[in-house]
Protein backbone atom coordinates (compact mmCIF):
# COMPACT_ATOMS: atom_id res chain seq x y z
CA UNK A 1 0.00 0.00 0.00
CA UNK A 2 1.24 3.48 -0.79
CA UNK A 3 2.49 5.12 2.40
CA UNK A 4 0.25 8.16 2.04
CA UNK A 5 -2.77 5.92 1.73
CA UNK A 6 -1.54 3.98 4.73
CA UNK A 7 -1.23 7.13 6.80
CA UNK A 8 -4.85 8.03 6.02
CA UNK A 9 -6.02 4.60 7.10
CA UNK A 10 -3.91 4.77 10.26
CA UNK A 11 -5.20 8.22 11.13
CA UNK A 12 -8.83 7.19 10.70
CA UNK A 13 -8.31 4.12 12.83
CA UNK A 14 -6.48 6.15 15.45
CA UNK A 15 -9.36 8.63 15.75
CA UNK A 16 -11.82 5.79 16.16
CA UNK A 17 -9.65 4.18 18.80
CA UNK A 18 -9.20 7.40 20.75
CA UNK A 19 -12.96 7.91 20.72
CA UNK A 20 -13.50 4.35 21.83
CA UNK A 21 -11.18 4.61 24.83
CA UNK A 22 -12.34 8.08 25.78
CA UNK A 23 -15.96 6.98 26.06
CA UNK A 24 -15.43 3.45 27.37
CA UNK A 25 -12.35 3.42 29.56
CA UNK A 26 -12.53 5.65 32.65
CA UNK A 27 -8.76 5.51 33.09
CA UNK A 28 -8.09 6.96 29.63
CA UNK A 29 -10.91 9.48 29.87
CA UNK A 30 -9.52 10.99 33.05
CA UNK A 31 -5.96 11.00 31.74
CA UNK A 32 -7.05 12.77 28.59
CA UNK A 33 -9.18 15.24 30.48
CA UNK A 34 -6.26 16.01 32.77
CA UNK A 35 -4.21 16.84 29.70
CA UNK A 36 -7.05 18.99 28.38
CA UNK A 37 -7.70 16.61 25.49
CA UNK A 38 -10.82 15.13 23.99
CA UNK A 39 -11.40 12.79 21.02
CA UNK A 40 -11.74 15.87 18.83
CA UNK A 41 -8.09 16.76 19.56
CA UNK A 42 -6.85 13.79 17.56
CA UNK A 43 -7.32 13.89 13.80
CA UNK A 44 -4.27 12.07 12.55
CA UNK A 45 -1.19 10.19 13.58
CA UNK A 46 0.57 13.56 13.70
CA UNK A 47 -1.46 14.33 16.83
CA UNK A 48 -0.44 11.14 18.59
CA UNK A 49 2.38 12.80 20.51
CA UNK A 50 -0.21 14.81 22.44
CA UNK A 51 -1.60 11.72 24.09
CA UNK A 52 -0.26 10.25 27.37
CA UNK A 53 1.75 7.01 27.52
CA UNK A 54 0.55 3.72 28.96
CA UNK A 55 2.88 1.48 30.97
CA UNK A 56 2.84 -2.01 32.45
CA UNK A 57 2.23 -0.39 35.81
CA UNK A 58 -1.00 1.12 34.44
CA UNK A 59 -2.17 -2.33 33.45
CA UNK A 60 -1.29 -3.60 36.87
CA UNK A 61 -3.10 -0.72 38.56
CA UNK A 62 -6.18 -1.56 36.53
CA UNK A 63 -5.99 -5.28 37.21
CA UNK A 64 -7.78 -7.27 36.11
CA UNK A 65 -10.29 -5.83 33.63
CA UNK A 66 -10.64 -2.08 34.18
CA UNK A 67 -8.81 -1.12 31.01
CA UNK A 68 -11.12 -3.16 28.80
CA UNK A 69 -13.18 -1.01 26.45
CA UNK A 70 -16.05 -3.43 26.08
CA UNK A 71 -18.37 -5.24 28.52
CA UNK A 72 -17.07 -8.66 29.61
CA UNK A 73 -19.84 -10.35 27.63
CA UNK A 74 -18.02 -9.20 24.48
CA UNK A 75 -14.70 -10.63 25.64
CA UNK A 76 -14.20 -14.10 24.22
CA UNK A 77 -10.61 -14.67 25.38
CA UNK A 78 -8.40 -13.63 28.26
CA UNK A 79 -4.62 -14.12 28.38
CA UNK A 80 -2.07 -13.12 31.00
CA UNK A 81 1.66 -12.67 31.36
CA UNK A 82 4.00 -11.68 34.15
CA UNK A 83 3.60 -8.31 35.80
CA UNK A 84 6.22 -6.37 37.74
CA UNK A 85 5.27 -7.82 41.11
CA UNK A 86 2.71 -10.40 42.11
CA UNK A 87 -0.06 -9.59 39.68
CA UNK A 88 -0.07 -10.80 36.09
CA UNK A 89 -0.76 -8.47 33.17
CA UNK A 90 -4.20 -9.33 31.85
CA UNK A 91 -5.32 -8.83 28.25
CA UNK A 92 -8.71 -9.44 26.66
CA UNK A 93 -9.97 -10.08 23.11
CA UNK A 94 -13.32 -9.65 21.38
CA UNK A 95 -14.31 -11.91 18.52
CA UNK A 96 -13.02 -9.33 16.06
CA UNK A 97 -9.75 -9.03 17.99
CA UNK A 98 -9.24 -12.78 17.64
CA UNK A 99 -9.84 -12.39 13.91
CA UNK A 100 -7.32 -9.52 13.79
CA UNK A 101 -4.82 -11.60 15.73
CA UNK A 102 -5.28 -14.53 13.39
CA UNK A 103 -4.78 -12.18 10.45
CA UNK A 104 -1.51 -10.70 11.70
CA UNK A 105 -0.29 -14.15 12.67
CA UNK A 106 -1.17 -15.35 9.19
CA UNK A 107 1.00 -12.53 7.85
CA UNK A 108 3.81 -13.61 10.17
CA UNK A 109 3.69 -17.15 8.86
CA UNK A 110 3.37 -16.00 5.27
CA UNK A 111 6.40 -13.75 5.79
CA UNK A 112 8.26 -16.89 6.75
CA UNK A 113 7.15 -18.54 3.54
CA UNK A 114 4.56 -20.87 5.07
CA UNK A 115 1.28 -21.82 3.37
CA UNK A 116 -1.56 -24.37 3.47
CA UNK A 117 0.74 -27.21 2.53
CA UNK A 118 2.86 -26.81 5.61
CA UNK A 119 2.79 -28.75 8.87
CA UNK A 120 3.38 -26.38 11.74
CA UNK A 121 4.86 -27.84 14.91
CA UNK A 122 3.90 -25.37 17.63
CA UNK A 123 6.15 -25.84 20.63
CA UNK A 124 5.35 -22.50 22.22
CA UNK A 125 3.48 -22.93 25.52
CA UNK A 126 -0.30 -23.22 25.28
CA UNK A 127 -2.21 -21.65 28.10
CA UNK A 128 -2.36 -18.17 29.53
CA UNK A 129 0.70 -17.16 27.54
CA UNK A 130 -0.13 -15.89 24.09
CA UNK A 131 2.60 -17.81 22.24
CA UNK A 132 0.95 -21.17 21.61
CA UNK A 133 -2.56 -20.05 20.74
CA UNK A 134 -1.23 -17.13 18.69
CA UNK A 135 0.71 -19.41 16.36
CA UNK A 136 -2.14 -21.87 16.38
CA UNK A 137 -4.78 -19.49 15.06
CA UNK A 138 -2.38 -18.02 12.51
CA UNK A 139 -1.56 -21.48 11.23
CA UNK A 140 -5.20 -22.43 10.87
CA UNK A 141 -5.92 -19.16 9.10
CA UNK A 142 -3.42 -19.90 6.36
CA UNK A 143 -4.82 -23.39 6.09
CA UNK A 144 -1.71 -25.16 7.30
CA UNK A 145 -1.86 -28.31 9.41
CA UNK A 146 -1.24 -27.20 12.96
CA UNK A 147 0.19 -29.55 15.56
CA UNK A 148 -0.39 -28.08 19.05
CA UNK A 149 2.52 -29.73 20.84
CA UNK A 150 3.19 -27.00 23.46
CA UNK A 151 6.44 -27.12 25.46
CA UNK A 152 8.30 -29.87 27.31
CA UNK A 153 8.73 -33.63 26.78
CA UNK A 154 11.51 -33.27 24.27
CA UNK A 155 11.58 -36.94 23.33
CA UNK A 156 7.99 -36.74 22.21
CA UNK A 157 8.73 -33.54 20.31
CA UNK A 158 11.41 -35.36 18.35
CA UNK A 159 9.16 -38.31 17.66
CA UNK A 160 6.46 -36.05 16.28
CA UNK A 161 8.92 -34.07 14.17
CA UNK A 162 10.10 -37.28 12.55
CA UNK A 163 6.76 -39.13 12.32
CA UNK A 164 4.58 -36.20 11.22
CA UNK A 165 7.22 -34.64 8.99
CA UNK A 166 6.60 -31.10 10.22
CA UNK A 167 7.92 -28.44 7.91
CA UNK A 168 7.66 -25.37 10.15
CA UNK A 169 8.96 -25.16 13.71
CA UNK A 170 7.54 -22.55 16.10
CA UNK A 171 9.20 -22.16 19.51
CA UNK A 172 11.68 -19.97 21.40
CA UNK A 173 15.13 -19.74 19.79
CA UNK A 174 16.83 -21.35 22.78
CA UNK A 175 14.40 -24.25 22.67
CA UNK A 176 15.18 -24.63 18.97
CA UNK A 177 18.84 -25.12 19.85
CA UNK A 178 17.87 -27.48 22.61
CA UNK A 179 15.87 -29.54 20.13
CA UNK A 180 18.78 -29.43 17.68
CA UNK A 181 21.08 -30.93 20.28
CA UNK A 182 18.53 -33.54 21.26
CA UNK A 183 18.24 -34.51 17.60
CA UNK A 184 22.01 -34.96 17.41
CA UNK A 185 22.11 -37.03 20.59
CA UNK A 186 19.24 -39.21 19.41
CA UNK A 187 21.25 -39.70 16.21
CA UNK A 188 18.34 -38.68 14.05
CA UNK A 189 19.58 -38.15 10.52
CA UNK A 190 18.96 -35.03 8.44
CA UNK A 191 16.84 -36.85 5.90
CA UNK A 192 14.49 -38.08 8.62
CA UNK A 193 13.35 -34.49 9.20
CA UNK A 194 11.40 -32.29 6.84
CA UNK A 195 11.84 -28.95 8.62
CA UNK A 196 12.28 -26.03 6.26
CA UNK A 197 11.77 -22.89 8.32
CA UNK A 198 11.36 -21.82 11.93
CA UNK A 199 9.55 -18.85 13.48
CA UNK A 200 11.28 -17.94 16.70
CA UNK A 201 10.58 -15.23 19.26
CA UNK A 202 9.54 -14.46 22.86
CA UNK A 203 13.15 -13.77 23.83
CA UNK A 204 16.12 -11.85 22.43
CA UNK A 205 18.53 -13.73 20.21
CA UNK A 206 21.59 -12.68 18.20
CA UNK A 207 22.70 -13.22 14.62
CA UNK A 208 25.19 -15.75 15.97
CA UNK A 209 22.42 -17.77 17.48
CA UNK A 210 20.46 -17.54 14.26
CA UNK A 211 23.38 -18.92 12.27
CA UNK A 212 23.75 -21.77 14.75
CA UNK A 213 20.08 -22.69 14.51
CA UNK A 214 20.07 -22.48 10.73
CA UNK A 215 23.15 -24.59 10.44
CA UNK A 216 22.16 -27.24 12.99
CA UNK A 217 18.57 -27.69 11.86
CA UNK A 218 19.14 -26.92 8.21
CA UNK A 219 16.31 -24.40 8.15
CA UNK A 220 15.77 -20.70 7.66
CA UNK A 221 15.35 -19.08 11.10
CA UNK A 222 12.87 -16.20 11.09
CA UNK A 223 12.63 -13.67 13.93
CA UNK A 224 9.12 -12.82 15.09
CA UNK A 225 8.12 -10.19 17.61
CA UNK A 226 5.13 -9.52 19.77
CA UNK A 227 3.88 -8.78 23.26
CA UNK A 228 0.61 -9.77 24.89
CA UNK A 229 -0.34 -6.21 25.70
CA UNK A 230 -0.30 -5.23 22.04
CA UNK A 231 -1.86 -8.51 20.88
CA UNK A 232 0.62 -11.36 21.41
CA UNK A 233 2.95 -12.73 18.71
CA UNK A 234 2.12 -11.23 15.32
CA UNK A 235 3.08 -7.62 15.93
CA UNK A 236 6.08 -7.89 13.62
CA UNK A 237 7.88 -10.53 11.59
CA UNK A 238 10.96 -10.92 9.45
CA UNK A 239 10.47 -11.83 5.83
CA UNK A 240 12.71 -14.17 3.92
CA UNK A 241 15.21 -11.33 3.38
CA UNK A 242 15.91 -11.39 7.13
CA UNK A 243 16.65 -7.67 7.09
CA UNK A 244 14.36 -6.38 9.78
CA UNK A 245 10.89 -7.29 11.06
CA UNK A 246 7.85 -5.94 9.22
CA UNK A 247 5.41 -4.36 11.65
CA UNK A 248 1.69 -4.73 10.93
CA UNK A 249 1.38 -0.98 11.24
CA UNK A 250 -2.17 -0.91 9.91
CA UNK A 251 -3.06 -2.46 13.26
CA UNK A 252 -0.23 -1.37 15.57
CA UNK A 253 1.16 2.11 15.08
CA UNK A 254 4.82 2.33 16.16
CA UNK A 255 6.81 5.23 17.54
CA UNK A 256 10.38 5.43 18.81
CA UNK A 257 10.93 7.57 21.89
CA UNK A 258 13.84 8.58 24.07
CA UNK A 259 13.18 6.51 27.22
CA UNK A 260 14.40 9.33 29.45
CA UNK A 261 12.96 12.50 27.91
CA UNK A 262 9.95 10.71 26.36
CA UNK A 263 10.36 12.74 23.18
CA UNK A 264 9.49 11.10 19.89
CA UNK A 265 12.72 10.50 17.99
CA UNK A 266 13.26 11.15 14.28
CA UNK A 267 13.26 8.31 11.75
CA UNK A 268 16.21 5.97 11.99
CA UNK A 269 17.18 6.80 15.58
CA UNK A 270 17.44 4.06 18.21
CA UNK A 271 15.10 4.33 21.16
CA UNK A 272 12.25 2.69 22.99
CA UNK A 273 9.47 1.15 20.91
CA UNK A 274 5.97 2.43 21.67
CA UNK A 275 2.78 0.98 20.16
CA UNK A 276 -0.72 2.34 19.77
CA UNK A 277 -3.27 -0.28 18.81
CA UNK A 278 -5.59 1.16 16.20
CA UNK A 279 -7.95 -1.72 15.54
CA UNK A 280 -8.25 -3.61 18.83
CA UNK A 281 -11.63 -3.48 20.55
CA UNK A 282 -11.21 -5.36 23.82
CA UNK A 283 -8.07 -3.75 25.16
CA UNK A 284 -7.03 -0.84 22.98
CA UNK A 285 -3.80 0.72 24.21
CA UNK A 286 -2.57 4.23 23.59
CA UNK A 287 1.18 4.72 23.30
CA UNK A 288 2.14 1.59 25.20
CA UNK A 289 5.79 1.62 26.27
CA UNK A 290 7.30 -1.75 25.42
CA UNK A 291 10.71 -1.02 27.03
CA UNK A 292 12.29 -2.75 24.04
CA UNK A 293 15.02 -0.77 22.30
CA UNK A 294 15.23 -0.72 18.51
CA UNK A 295 15.25 1.37 15.36
CA UNK A 296 12.75 1.73 12.50
CA UNK A 297 13.38 1.63 8.74
CA UNK A 298 10.77 3.04 6.41
CA UNK A 299 12.34 2.23 3.04
CA UNK A 300 10.76 -0.49 0.95
CA UNK A 301 12.14 -3.92 1.71
CA UNK A 302 13.75 -6.12 -0.95
CA UNK A 303 10.82 -8.49 -0.52
CA UNK A 304 8.51 -5.81 -1.87
CA UNK A 305 6.63 -5.08 1.34
CA UNK A 306 6.30 -1.42 2.36
CA UNK A 307 5.35 -2.00 6.01
CA UNK A 308 7.91 -0.34 8.28
CA UNK A 309 10.63 -2.61 9.59
CA UNK A 310 12.11 -2.73 13.08
CA UNK A 311 15.56 -4.09 13.80
CA UNK A 312 16.09 -7.06 16.05
CA UNK A 313 15.64 -5.73 19.59
CA UNK A 314 18.91 -4.55 21.08
CA UNK A 315 17.99 -4.57 24.75
CA UNK A 316 15.53 -3.19 27.24
CA UNK A 317 15.15 0.10 29.06
CA UNK A 318 14.07 -1.61 32.29
CA UNK A 319 15.26 -4.54 34.35
CA UNK A 320 12.94 -7.18 32.96
CA UNK A 321 14.51 -10.52 32.15
CA UNK A 322 13.23 -13.15 29.78
CA UNK A 323 13.93 -16.68 30.98
CA UNK A 324 12.83 -19.53 28.70
CA UNK A 325 10.38 -17.14 27.09
CA UNK A 326 8.84 -16.10 30.39
CA UNK A 327 9.02 -12.49 31.64
CA UNK A 328 10.62 -12.00 35.03
CA UNK A 329 11.12 -8.83 37.02
CA UNK A 330 13.60 -8.94 39.93
CA UNK A 331 11.00 -7.06 41.96
CA UNK A 332 8.76 -10.13 41.75
CA UNK A 333 11.45 -12.14 43.48
CA UNK A 334 11.86 -9.43 46.07
CA UNK A 335 8.21 -9.34 46.99
CA UNK A 336 8.17 -13.11 47.59
CA UNK A 337 11.30 -12.91 49.76
CA UNK A 338 10.03 -9.95 51.76
CA UNK A 339 7.13 -12.07 52.94
CA UNK A 340 9.47 -14.59 54.54
CA UNK A 341 10.93 -13.68 57.90
CA UNK A 342 13.50 -16.47 57.91
CA UNK A 343 15.68 -14.74 55.37
CA UNK A 344 17.06 -11.33 54.74
CA UNK A 345 15.99 -9.96 51.35
CA UNK A 346 19.59 -9.76 50.22
CA UNK A 347 19.62 -11.85 47.12
CA UNK A 348 21.33 -12.37 43.83
CA UNK A 349 19.73 -13.80 40.71
CA UNK A 350 22.14 -15.62 38.47
CA UNK A 351 20.96 -16.32 34.97
CA UNK A 352 22.85 -18.62 32.70
CA UNK A 353 22.36 -20.75 29.67
CA UNK A 354 23.44 -24.35 29.98
CA UNK A 355 22.97 -26.72 27.05
CA UNK A 356 20.84 -24.06 25.41
CA UNK A 357 18.34 -23.84 28.21
CA UNK A 358 18.10 -20.79 30.43
CA UNK A 359 18.79 -21.55 34.06
CA UNK A 360 17.90 -19.43 37.03
CA UNK A 361 19.60 -19.56 40.41
CA UNK A 362 18.71 -17.49 43.43
CA UNK A 363 21.30 -16.94 46.11
CA UNK A 364 19.76 -15.64 49.29
CA UNK A 365 21.26 -14.87 52.69
CA UNK A 366 19.95 -16.70 55.72
CA UNK A 367 18.98 -14.69 58.74
CA UNK A 368 21.50 -15.37 61.50
CA UNK A 369 18.90 -15.52 64.21
CA UNK A 370 17.08 -18.21 62.25
CA UNK A 371 20.03 -20.59 62.10
CA UNK A 372 19.85 -23.48 64.48
CA UNK A 373 21.58 -26.78 64.31
CA UNK A 374 19.27 -28.80 62.12
CA UNK A 375 19.96 -29.80 58.55
CA UNK A 376 16.30 -30.55 58.00
CA UNK A 377 15.32 -27.05 59.02
CA UNK A 378 17.63 -25.47 56.49
CA UNK A 379 16.53 -27.94 53.85
CA UNK A 380 12.90 -27.16 54.38
CA UNK A 381 13.62 -23.45 54.35
CA UNK A 382 15.34 -23.83 51.03
CA UNK A 383 12.43 -25.87 49.74
CA UNK A 384 9.92 -23.33 51.00
CA UNK A 385 11.66 -20.47 49.23
CA UNK A 386 11.85 -22.51 46.07
CA UNK A 387 8.18 -23.47 46.17
CA UNK A 388 7.03 -19.92 46.90
CA UNK A 389 9.11 -18.52 44.06
CA UNK A 390 8.15 -21.16 41.54
CA UNK A 391 4.49 -20.62 42.12
CA UNK A 392 4.82 -16.82 41.97
CA UNK A 393 7.04 -16.72 38.89
CA UNK A 394 5.88 -19.74 36.93
CA UNK A 395 9.53 -20.70 36.48
CA UNK A 396 11.75 -23.42 37.89
CA UNK A 397 14.47 -21.92 40.05
CA UNK A 398 17.40 -23.29 42.05
CA UNK A 399 17.74 -21.78 45.50
CA UNK A 400 21.10 -21.62 47.29
CA UNK A 401 21.36 -20.46 50.89
CA UNK A 402 24.41 -18.33 51.52
CA UNK A 403 26.01 -16.87 54.58
CA UNK A 404 24.92 -13.45 55.76
CA UNK A 405 26.83 -10.46 54.41
CA UNK A 406 28.23 -12.38 51.47
CA UNK A 407 26.08 -10.66 48.89
CA UNK A 408 27.49 -7.32 47.85
CA UNK A 409 25.80 -4.31 49.27
CA UNK A 410 25.86 -1.08 47.35
CA UNK A 411 24.95 2.48 48.08
CA UNK A 412 22.69 3.00 45.16
CA UNK A 413 20.49 0.40 43.54
CA UNK A 414 21.79 -3.01 44.52
CA UNK A 415 22.98 -5.21 41.70
CA UNK A 416 20.46 -7.98 41.88
CA UNK A 417 21.04 -9.82 38.66
CA UNK A 418 24.03 -11.43 37.04
CA UNK A 419 23.18 -12.50 33.51
CA UNK A 420 25.89 -14.79 32.18
CA UNK A 421 24.16 -15.59 28.95
CA UNK A 422 26.01 -14.71 25.81
CA UNK A 423 23.82 -14.93 22.82
Amino acid at each position, binding site marked *: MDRNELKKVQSERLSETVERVYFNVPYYRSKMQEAGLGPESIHSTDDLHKLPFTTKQDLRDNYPFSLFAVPMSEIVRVHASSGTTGKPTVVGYTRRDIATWSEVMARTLTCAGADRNDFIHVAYGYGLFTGGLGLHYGGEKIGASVIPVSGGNTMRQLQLLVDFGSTVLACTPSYALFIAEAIEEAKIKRDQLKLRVGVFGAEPWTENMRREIEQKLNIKAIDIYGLSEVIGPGVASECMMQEGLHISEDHFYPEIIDPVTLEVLPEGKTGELVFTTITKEGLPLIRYRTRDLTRLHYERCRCGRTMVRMEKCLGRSDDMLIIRGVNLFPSQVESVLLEMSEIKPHYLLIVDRINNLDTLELQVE*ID*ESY*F*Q*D*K*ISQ*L*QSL*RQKIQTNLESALGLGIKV*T*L*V*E*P*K*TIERSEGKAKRVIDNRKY
Partner: protein
Amino acid sequence: MIVHQLSVFLENKSGRLTEVLETLGSESIRVTALSVADTTEFGILRMIVSDPARAKELLKNRQFTVNITDVISIMAPNEAKYYAMVLRILSDQDISIEYTYAFSVGEKSVIILRCSDTEAAIKALKDHEMELIKASDLYKL
Protein backbone atom coordinates in the same frame (compact mmCIF):
# COMPACT_ATOMS: atom_id res chain seq x y z
CA MET B 1 25.82 -32.39 82.13
CA ILE B 2 24.85 -30.19 79.25
CA VAL B 3 27.67 -29.48 76.91
CA HIS B 4 27.76 -26.44 74.66
CA GLN B 5 28.50 -27.55 71.16
CA LEU B 6 29.22 -24.98 68.49
CA SER B 7 27.29 -25.17 65.22
CA VAL B 8 28.48 -23.19 62.22
CA PHE B 9 26.67 -22.78 58.89
CA LEU B 10 29.01 -23.55 56.04
CA GLU B 11 28.29 -22.55 52.48
CA ASN B 12 29.51 -25.04 49.94
CA LYS B 13 32.49 -22.86 49.11
CA SER B 14 36.07 -23.97 49.17
CA GLY B 15 38.04 -22.67 52.12
CA ARG B 16 35.21 -22.00 54.52
CA LEU B 17 36.12 -24.82 56.88
CA THR B 18 39.76 -23.75 56.80
CA GLU B 19 38.81 -20.21 57.73
CA VAL B 20 36.80 -21.42 60.71
CA LEU B 21 39.69 -23.43 62.06
CA GLU B 22 42.19 -20.66 61.39
CA THR B 23 39.97 -18.26 63.33
CA LEU B 24 39.92 -20.57 66.32
CA GLY B 25 43.60 -21.25 65.93
CA SER B 26 44.41 -17.56 66.22
CA GLU B 27 43.58 -17.70 69.92
CA SER B 28 44.76 -21.24 70.50
CA ILE B 29 41.30 -22.60 71.11
CA ARG B 30 41.44 -26.38 71.27
CA VAL B 31 39.06 -28.52 69.30
CA THR B 32 38.03 -31.66 71.17
CA ALA B 33 35.73 -33.06 68.55
CA LEU B 34 34.55 -32.01 65.13
CA SER B 35 32.05 -33.30 62.60
CA VAL B 36 30.47 -31.93 59.46
CA ALA B 37 26.92 -32.72 58.44
CA ASP B 38 26.67 -32.09 54.75
CA THR B 39 24.17 -31.81 51.96
CA THR B 40 25.07 -30.95 48.39
CA GLU B 41 24.37 -27.29 48.94
CA PHE B 42 25.68 -26.51 52.39
CA GLY B 43 26.96 -28.06 55.62
CA ILE B 44 26.72 -27.60 59.35
CA LEU B 45 30.00 -27.81 61.23
CA ARG B 46 29.69 -29.09 64.77
CA MET B 47 32.50 -28.75 67.30
CA ILE B 48 33.27 -29.28 70.93
CA VAL B 49 35.91 -26.72 71.84
CA SER B 50 37.79 -25.64 74.90
CA ASP B 51 36.04 -22.28 75.19
CA PRO B 52 32.69 -22.28 73.40
CA ALA B 53 31.66 -18.74 74.41
CA ARG B 54 34.91 -17.20 73.22
CA ALA B 55 34.90 -19.30 70.07
CA LYS B 56 31.39 -18.12 69.21
CA GLU B 57 32.44 -14.51 69.62
CA LEU B 58 35.51 -14.92 67.46
CA LEU B 59 33.56 -16.59 64.70
CA LYS B 60 30.76 -14.05 64.76
CA ASN B 61 33.29 -11.27 64.39
CA ARG B 62 34.50 -13.00 61.27
CA GLN B 63 30.93 -12.98 59.93
CA PHE B 64 30.19 -16.64 60.47
CA THR B 65 26.71 -17.79 61.33
CA VAL B 66 27.13 -19.57 64.66
CA ASN B 67 24.89 -21.09 67.24
CA ILE B 68 25.30 -23.00 70.49
CA THR B 69 23.51 -26.32 70.75
CA ASP B 70 23.02 -28.30 73.95
CA VAL B 71 24.37 -31.83 73.75
CA ILE B 72 25.11 -34.58 76.25
CA SER B 73 28.41 -36.35 76.63
CA ILE B 74 28.97 -39.80 78.11
CA MET B 75 32.10 -41.68 78.99
CA ALA B 76 32.01 -45.42 78.27
CA PRO B 77 34.46 -48.24 77.62
CA ASN B 78 35.72 -48.28 74.08
CA GLU B 79 33.48 -51.09 72.82
CA ALA B 80 30.54 -51.14 70.44
CA LYS B 81 28.29 -52.91 72.93
CA TYR B 82 28.46 -49.99 75.32
CA TYR B 83 27.57 -47.52 72.62
CA ALA B 84 24.68 -49.77 71.71
CA MET B 85 23.57 -49.85 75.31
CA VAL B 86 23.43 -46.09 75.48
CA LEU B 87 21.35 -45.90 72.36
CA ARG B 88 19.08 -48.68 73.58
CA ILE B 89 18.38 -46.87 76.86
CA LEU B 90 17.23 -43.82 74.98
CA SER B 91 15.14 -45.62 72.42
CA ASP B 92 13.40 -47.61 75.17
CA GLN B 93 12.29 -44.29 76.59
CA ASP B 94 11.14 -43.03 73.20
CA ILE B 95 13.74 -40.32 73.23
CA SER B 96 14.85 -39.74 69.68
CA ILE B 97 18.42 -39.02 68.79
CA GLU B 98 18.97 -36.31 66.22
CA TYR B 99 22.59 -37.14 65.78
CA THR B 100 25.50 -38.65 67.61
CA TYR B 101 29.24 -39.02 67.24
CA ALA B 102 32.03 -40.45 69.33
CA PHE B 103 35.78 -40.46 69.75
CA SER B 104 38.30 -42.40 71.85
CA VAL B 105 40.38 -41.14 74.70
CA GLY B 106 42.76 -43.97 75.56
CA GLU B 107 40.72 -47.06 76.34
CA LYS B 108 37.60 -45.11 76.90
CA SER B 109 35.30 -43.45 74.43
CA VAL B 110 33.40 -40.21 74.65
CA ILE B 111 29.94 -40.30 73.11
CA ILE B 112 28.21 -37.07 72.16
CA LEU B 113 24.42 -37.10 71.76
CA ARG B 114 21.92 -34.56 70.54
CA CYS B 115 18.48 -35.64 71.72
CA SER B 116 14.94 -34.47 71.16
CA ASP B 117 14.55 -34.02 74.90
CA THR B 118 17.84 -33.26 76.61
CA GLU B 119 16.51 -33.29 80.19
CA ALA B 120 14.71 -36.60 79.77
CA ALA B 121 17.80 -38.11 78.18
CA ILE B 122 20.02 -37.05 81.07
CA LYS B 123 17.59 -38.55 83.55
CA ALA B 124 17.30 -41.83 81.65
CA LEU B 125 21.05 -42.20 81.36
CA LYS B 126 21.66 -41.36 85.01
CA ASP B 127 19.01 -43.88 86.05
CA HIS B 128 20.99 -46.51 84.18
CA GLU B 129 24.19 -45.43 85.86
CA MET B 130 25.81 -44.14 82.74
CA GLU B 131 28.78 -41.93 83.33
CA LEU B 132 27.93 -38.45 82.12
CA ILE B 133 30.82 -36.13 81.61
CA LYS B 134 30.75 -32.65 82.97
CA ALA B 135 31.08 -29.90 80.40
CA SER B 136 34.11 -28.41 82.10
CA ASP B 137 35.91 -31.74 82.00
CA LEU B 138 35.14 -32.19 78.33
CA TYR B 139 36.49 -28.79 77.41
CA LYS B 140 39.79 -29.73 79.05
CA LEU B 141 40.36 -32.70 76.81
